[in-house]
């Protein structure tokens, strides 16, 4: 599988990234190199290599349904660019 111009533009749209036309070729090249690296890794013979420790045989622990967090709004909103009436303000999102 190789990345082409269309793939790059689709990914840019999904990621909400602006991409100048002269950046596209460079991006295609970079992404293809990542895929090449994956191909290279997959080609390595790992038959006698012990797998790393993974959590995949573990299961999730659940938490009791108890409220332990308290209101931190004032503190949390100090890092927000714009707030008013307790709300976070963002550029208008409806058309």
């Amino acid at each position, binding site marked *: 599988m190789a990345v082409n111009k269309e793939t790059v533009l689709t990914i840019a749209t999904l990621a*909400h990234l602006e991409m100048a036309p002269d950046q596209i070729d460079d991006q295609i090249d970079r992404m293809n190199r990542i895929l090449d690296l994956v191909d290279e890794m997959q080609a390595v013979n790992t038959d006698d290599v012990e797998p790393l420790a993974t959590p995949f045989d573990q299961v999730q622990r659940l*938490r009791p349904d*108890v409220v332990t967090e308290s209101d931190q*709004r004032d503190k*949390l909103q100090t890092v927000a660019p714009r707030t008013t009436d*307790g709300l976070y303000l963002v550029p208008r999102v409806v058309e």
Partner: protein
Amino acid sequence: MSDWQIVIGLEIHAQLNTRSKIFSAVSTAFGAEPNTQASLVDLGFPGVLPVTNEAVYEKAVAFGLGVSAQINHRSVFDRKNYFYPDLPKGYQITQLADPIVEHGNVDIELADGSTKTIHITRAHLEEDAGKSLHEDYAGETGVDLNRAGTPLLEIVSEPDLRSAEEASTYARLIHKLLTSLDICDGNMAEGSMRCDANVSVRRYKNHPLGTRTETKNINSFRFLEQAINYEVERQIQVLESGGRVTQETRLYDPDRNETRPMRSKETAMDYRYFPEPDLLPVVIDDSYVEAIRERLPEMPDEKRERFERAFELTTEDAETLSTNRALADYFEQVATASEPRLASNWVRVELLGRVSKDNFDMAQVPIPASELATLINRISDDMISGKIAKTIFEALWNREASSVDAYIEAEGLKQVSDSSDLAPIVTSIIAANPKQAEQYRAGKTKLLGFFVGQVMKETGGRANPKQVNDLVRSELDATG
């Protein structure tokens, strides 16, 4: 229109009534000041980790058992990626390939009395998003993230529904199940249950399905019917005029009774789902499921049948009293401590005349079941008349009285049913109205009611009407 078949599937989002959120230990209480119930986890700060609430699993499993579904012993959370300000992480944690519940079904009753099985594809756990407020901030959107992370059970039906009526009947049944199982408060006005309707039409049965549209976030049964009917008509018009239905997401506007496309999408949405790396699979076993099955409350239909049997109620009355769990519990307490059919009347007429069946909330009912039972017992044992009982009910409702017996005593409301007390009153009333007495004896027996009324008035409504009737009649007949 008759040669079009309507095909509908519903996605119902039910907020689970847990105390804390699905992945953070933050309160889910409705109506708090904006963003006072939004923690680092809910806001999607870097470096934080979700920790799953055990109660969401119990509730999802209870729902699965309630719809005779398969409970998956291993379920996995996934990330659904999209950008919207009310989803600060940039992804919603949901379950795609391995949901907790699959392959359920429920039977709905159709208008002609027959039943139809509606299949439930799946029910999966996910987190709710925050709320965007577009109105009050010029050029900007205000975001309240209190709702972000509220646990949702998304219940997806097969496209088995064939009309707006069937869809709303099914939605009502799911609502009843959710509230009876006590896993969702069912308050649709507060958004505790929301429906997305997938609607398409096709020329003939068994033809391939037509292109569908999805109308989102419908928050009442009436709007659900209206939105579907609008969408069906619109699609048929488009197709009959040679056009094609666009697969899109639409929004129902109840003010104009129409649906509109929600957002224009040049490219089809690609959510790039992948397994949530912050959460391991959840594994449950048979004993976990069986323990929940044992604790499962009675289902609404079972309850209705039991009410019919145990309390000798009509199906219709039993249905009214069993739909809402809080109401059913209240009625049952009254009915077991008094005469059940009287209890049924009082709860249905007097109580439900003051508080809605659908949003029955014990916090709004100032009369304990035990007091209503006492009130009914005082009617049964002839201590008070039905009319006096209503004034006592009124006093209890307005919190002017708290104990029925104390109030009867204090206000002297005891029915006068001692003949030696009533007889002199009857005699004096007849003596005071000689003309009417004469007419009665001449055959105008309808005047009996007049004398009874006078006696009732004289006793302040406390006389036993049946006894007054007998006394007046014998007195008039005797002194002729």
